[in-house]
């Protein structure tokens, strides 16, 4: 007996070092996995931020614009239509020609005009219309939006004078360098990126339209999926008998949660667009399709949080004479709410990042006008990223990364909110 215990303790002692080593290795593997994940995250962020940060700045060119009544074609400044259709591009071109007076040939002139964005005329119209009586016939130094090729050139310009010339001709480079030497080129914060809709001109493109589209789509999704999901979860947990039908439903819900999202898009196309003849590309249809996709997530998380409410609370409520409905509405739901909200937010975050089902119902589209409601054609943030990443223009590369940064910011906010809500409202039994 004594001899026996002796032997056991020897055995333990002999193996102890080995077991410690195994323990250390085990911990190390976990640490390694986390570091690998973090490394990937850091790589992703540095790549995106490295490419995208320059999109938050936009190049502007200062020109002495002479508001010549003849060139503009305005003889009466009170006439609204005259102010609208006036030839603002004409005065910009004239200002460019005055600055570079040696430009003669038609080809060179076209190249010169290309230094300033196509949208500059519209900006000029806006500033001019604020005080037409003061400015008509005067010369003002104004900062105008530069073309995307100029923008890329200026941004890639290093101290040693090397730059990505891209599509700029040698003449154009010379002109830009002259403007830089005169300090007539400046990089400013790119407000257009946040205030305008999509555009084919990178310098005029913004994500406001996509953000509004995402907002309307998510609103429809939330309004539909949260009540339906909670109601379904309550019924399944509190009322439904346990038989093979409810088992079947449970299997199907879990199954739906794993169905590829493109299938919901096909369903949406077949039912809402082809059968109900709803228009393509609208957030209402997008929201309904995403509802179908997020419902399983919300039902599963709601059921889990209802299940976590201790039965003693239900029994106490019933014991003092509450009806089943009162028990659920007054006790179970309020206690389960934090878990259900967390599930809903995670479901929403998932819906925010979804593109595949929207492809089928026409939300992967070029839409310039900023949507004003759930029935206006719209696109969403991830789709905007996809569309820009596929555009040939060089300046869209940085805008793609910038849009990814905005999307990531939204996702981080939503997920932080979910964690915070859980921490804040969670109760331990």
């Amino acid at each position: 007996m004594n001899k026996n215990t002796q032997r056991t303790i020897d055995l333990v002692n002999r193996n102890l070092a080995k077991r410690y080593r195994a323990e250390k290795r085990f911990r190390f593997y976990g640490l390694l996995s986390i570091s690998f994940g973090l490394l990937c995250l850091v790589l992703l962020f540095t790549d995106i931020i490295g490419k995208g940060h320059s999109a938050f700045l936009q190049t502007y060119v200062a020109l002495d614009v002479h508001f010549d009544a003849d060139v503009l074609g305005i003889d009466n400044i009170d006439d609204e239509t005259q102010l609208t259709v006036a030839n603002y591009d004409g005065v910009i071109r004239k200002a460019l020609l005055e600055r570079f007076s040696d430009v003669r040939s038609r080809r060179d002139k076209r190249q010169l005009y290309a230094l300033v964005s196509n949208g500059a005329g519209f900006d000029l119209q806006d500033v001019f219309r604020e005080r037409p009586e003061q400015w008509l016939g005067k010369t003002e130094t104004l900062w105008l939006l530069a073309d995307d090729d100029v923008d890329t050139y200026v941004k890639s310009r290093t101290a040693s004078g090397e730059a990505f010339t891209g599509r700029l001709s040698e003449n154009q480079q010379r002109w830009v360098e002259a403007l830089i030497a005169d300090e007539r080129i400046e990089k400013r914060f790119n407000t257009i990126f946040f205030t305008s809709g999509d555009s084919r001109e990178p310098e005029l493109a913004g994500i406001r339209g996509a953000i509004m589209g995402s907002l309307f789509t998510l609103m429809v999704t939330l309004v539909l999926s949260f009540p339906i999901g909670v109601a379904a979860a309550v019924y399944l947990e509190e009322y439904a008998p346990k038989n093979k039908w409810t088992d079947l439903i449970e299997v199907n819900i879990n199954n739906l949660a794993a169905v590829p999202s493109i299938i919901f898009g096909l369903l949406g196309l077949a039912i809402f667009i082809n059968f109900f003849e709803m228009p393509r590309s609208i957030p209402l249809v997008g929201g309904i399709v995403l509802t179908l996709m997020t419902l399983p997530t919300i039902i599963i998380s709601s059921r889990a949080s209802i299940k976590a409410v201790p039965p003693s609370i239900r029994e106490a409520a019933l014991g003092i004479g509450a009806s089943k409905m009162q028990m659920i509405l007054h006790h179970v739901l309020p206690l389960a709410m934090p878990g259900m909200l967390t599930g809903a937010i995670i479901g929403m975050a998932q819906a925010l990042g979804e593109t595949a089902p929207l492809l089928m119902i026409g939300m992967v589209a070029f839409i310039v006008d900023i949507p004003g409601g759930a029935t206006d054609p719209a696109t969403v943030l991830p789709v905007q990223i996809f569309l820009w990443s596929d555009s040939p223009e060089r300046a869209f590369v940085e805008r793609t990364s910038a849009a990814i940064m905005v999307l990531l910011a939204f996702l981080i906010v939503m997920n932080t909110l979910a964690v915070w809500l859980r921490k804040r409202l969670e109760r331990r039994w």
Partner: protein
Amino acid sequence: MKKTLITATLAATTLAGAQLAAAARDYITIVGSSTVFPFATVVAERFGRGTTFKTPNVESTGSGGGLKLFCNGVGVQHPDITNSSRRIKASEVEMCHENGVTHIVEVLIGYDGIVLANSVKSRPMQLTRKDIFLALAKEIPNPDGTETLVANPYKTWKDVNPALPSTRIEVLGPPPTSGTRDAFAELALEGGCKAFDWVAGLKKKDKNKYKSVCHTVREDGPYIDAGENDNLIVQKLNANPNALGVFGFSFLDQNSDKVQGSLIDNREPTFESIADGSYPVSRPLYFYVKKAHVGVIPGIKEYLAEFTSERAWGEEGYLTEKGMIPLPDQERAKVGGNVKMLKNLAM
């Protein structure tokens, strides 16, 4: 609380439904080719800014997908215009007719060049269409000269043509669903395939056989499906100087610091060589308009006018700035005239 929530939800849904039913579409819907997409969107944007009409919606669904949606029927839920990087097929016209889309206006807008490019880090390639065919076709005529087909045995460019470098054949290109791939097969591969007289002779005897020989791309590795995203192909070429990539001219134009076009039949892919037709691998771009929607959906006529205006599709128009190759003057005048009269498609 719960009650108000439910009532609010119901009210919101009914309201949205009612609004939908009442809304006749007041903007143009355009679907179709991803190649025409960059051009159609520019016109749409200009049109939206320059007129009182709303900006048209442009979706990129691919040529085939676009025509399918377009031919689904007449009515506000169906698109008004579809873009295509190939001509409409007789079978598609038939499908349109069956669904009541009987009057279609065809607009030929310009050309697009397809380039084979490699990284600027290596030297530009000088290829002929025959080289391209021999390097990329699944089956090629037996090198011993007999009139039989063998599975493509070539591994390096030097095997194909002794004048070429001895690098491995590696071509990144679009997947089979892409219009660019179809056009590449039709123009580059078939062009090289015809160089063999007996294969060219097959066209009359056995058309299907001819097509399968000339259009089938090899699947044993040298041709790599790189997805629809042309920017991605450019990036991959940059990382692998030995590979070639297949994509549209506008991407070459925008990335001239990273990639260079290969010479095909001694022609460099430039704006000028594609416009005058001397560069052999270029294809026409079209869009199709549903005549029944003209006058119902506001702005279609004006959109057509904008697209066919000299400042858009002309030699120095803004579409050329985006990389589209304009039609010759005479053809432009003819197509423009047909569009003005909304002349019906004649196959």
